[in-house]
């Protein structure tokens, strides 16, 4: 994964607020992922237009953390979802 890559939720994958369990979830084919605070924060920034770099910069500002660390966390988190087919990557 390169910092210029743009992550997006492919069709068939969407976030949803589970009111019964009071938690955000990611729904995909045969997959339900309960999102923790980090997952929720990252996926909220995945808008299909922002690059990993841009997402990390916003999160670094919001959480007052070094962007180098955040970029690593974001890539690691999203790479797992890419391998599961729940996130796509675009290179413009």
């Amino acid at each position: 994964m390169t910092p210029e890559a743009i992550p997006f939720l492919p069709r068939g994958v969407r976030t949803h607020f589970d009111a019964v369990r009071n938690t955000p979830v990611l729904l995909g084919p045969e997959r339900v992922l309960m999102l923790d605070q980090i997952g929720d924060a990252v996926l909220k920034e995945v808008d299909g237009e922002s690059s990993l770099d841009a997402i990390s910069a916003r999160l670094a500002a919001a959480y007052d953390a070094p962007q180098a660390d955040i970029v690593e966390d974001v890539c690691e988190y999203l790479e797992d979802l890419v391998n599961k087919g729940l996130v796509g990557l675009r290179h413009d």
Partner: protein
Amino acid sequence: MIDPPIAMLAELTHRCPLACPYCSNPQELTAKEEELDTENWVDVFEQAARLGVLQLHLSGGEPASRRDLLELVVAARKAGLYTNLITSGVGLTPKKLEDLDNAGLDHIQLSIQGINAQIADRIGGYKGGFDRKMHIADHIAARAIPLTLNAVMHRENINDLVATMDMAERLGARRIEVACVQFHGWALQNRTALQPTRAQVDRAKDIIKAESEKRMGRLVIDFVPPDYYSDFPKACMGGWGSTGLNVTPNGTVLPCHAAETIPTLTFANVKESSLSEIWYHGSAFNAYRGTDWMPALCQTCTRRDIDFGGCRCQAMALLGDPDAVDPVCKKSPDRPVVDRLVTVESDGLAESNLIYRRM
């Protein structure tokens, strides 16, 4: 503490143009006249969403045999459910597909019976079925509707594993379920014809491993191994009454699709009780929920919370005792029963006369 269910399988109908000999429907099929009507189903979907269900699988039979399929998909999406259509594709038309797409159908799981018309139509028991399926698959791809291919593997087609995955990619599927046939329902009486050989299974596992790496990022491969060849039982339903429930065409609510084979259980119906009442208090759901029901061997086992005591329907089918240790488990005193079956039935010499699923 009982958690709410995550998934619901709605078997809208048992009607189906295909006659696959491994169909998971029960031997005793429900007639059209006994099916829940549109209003019943819509109410069940709304109840399910309130109960905590997130994913709805519209299945059958062939769900496209229901004339109100579109209305049901609209209602399911309105209830907030992730809506998956499990179909053979036969019975769908480009127009119906367009309507379902516009209604917000989230995903389609398309079953395939073989990699070409000759094999597929023989297994499906329906001439021309393969061509119709491929036609609708093209339309699914053209509309970019998220697609999973579901391939039930057995002795006749497990050697076509790689070609089956190629087919999935060719049809634009992002995911494939390669499920070795589970011996319940109609598959149980076709076991002699369908049971793969040990050599086939070993080879299949190697192929799955290699292909999963090779196709990573393009195709997600979910493999369901044939459990007669496993050392430990499958964690049926992720634990009885823990994550999912099934509603049959007439509204009977089951902890798993084969549960009606257990004669000691009684099942409630959505026409008489609420889904919530059935999930939390129904006797069938509580019969094997948690760990208290387990034989001592399972209760004290380190895999207790991995296998959840295996499959009750399998203990019933193979031993006639739904309370017994799943005989697939290598620790079970009844494991020789499974070994004997595998030895006798999978030598490839047995005549493969398929008994087709018919109403």
